[in-house]
């Protein structure tokens, strides 16, 4: 029997990173303020988690200007999708095979 813990990804142990990935899995480009609103977190907190995901190439960032206001949007990369789906499958497995 294969070990279900294998697929679990340490990165997604953080609730906020988990939430960001969940949102980006079902939406194309989502802007920073929308993420903040859904997750109900503070600026500094969210920014550092987003940087963490970006440095692992799980998400990509796009910076634009709308009028004079900067707009930062995020999208899940194919690699990020794959990693997150593996993590989700592992979680499900763990619960199904609960002794």
């Amino acid at each position: 029997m294969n070990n279900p813990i294998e697929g679990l990804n340490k990165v997604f142990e953080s609730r906020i990173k988990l939430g960001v990935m969940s949102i980006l899995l079902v939406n194309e480009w989502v802007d920073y303020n929308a993420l903040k609103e859904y997750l109900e977190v503070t600026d500094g907190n969210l920014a550092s988690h987003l940087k963490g995901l970006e440095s692992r190439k799980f998400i990509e960032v796009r910076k634009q200007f709308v009028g004079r206001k900067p707009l930062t949007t995020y999208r899940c990369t194919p690699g990020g999708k794959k990693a997150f789906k593996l993590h989700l499958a592992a979680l499900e497995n763990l619960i199904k095979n609960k002794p």
Partner: protein
Amino acid sequence: MENSEKHLQDIAEIKQMMERSSRFISLSGWSGISAGSFALLGAFAAYRLMRSSTGPSLDSYLVIDAIIVLILALSSSIYFSWRKARKQGATLWSPVTRKLLLNMAIPLVTGGIYCAIMFWQDQLHLIAGCTLIFYGLALVNAGRFTNKEAVILGIAEIILGIAASIWYAYSFWIWGIGFGLFHILYGITLYSKYDRPKTHE
């Protein structure tokens, strides 16, 4: 087994975030029930008006009646949804809400303009069917961002709208079924499926 407890919480969080970010889930069953009831009351008032008065003043009475119904139905739906959103700990004015409204607005505004044109061209007998058809299209369009029952309601409204245009002698009654009865049924379905406190084991 505090670990599997955390895994369960993680999955619940994932599910909640996916839903909250992609679907408008705060529409309350009571919104449908109240909107449908106001539509029926409005139709009843219109029926009384049509029996008691005639001529150009009747048209303006009917327009006023329709506007009052629209305001009451909209504000009560918004109120019940706002209440549900507060209970869910979510905000009503989210990016999903904006997407939902934009997708509804395109068919609704088109339909509104088209109905106004019919009014000016004295095609009054086709207006009831026209409102049903465009409202149905708006619901089908909005279905991607909310519950699938909205799509079913939308298709039902479109069919009624076509029927009301063919048998326009009965369009008043068909309108009452579409905006009154069907909204109430939709509200009851939403309530029993999503709102009613579930009895968990």
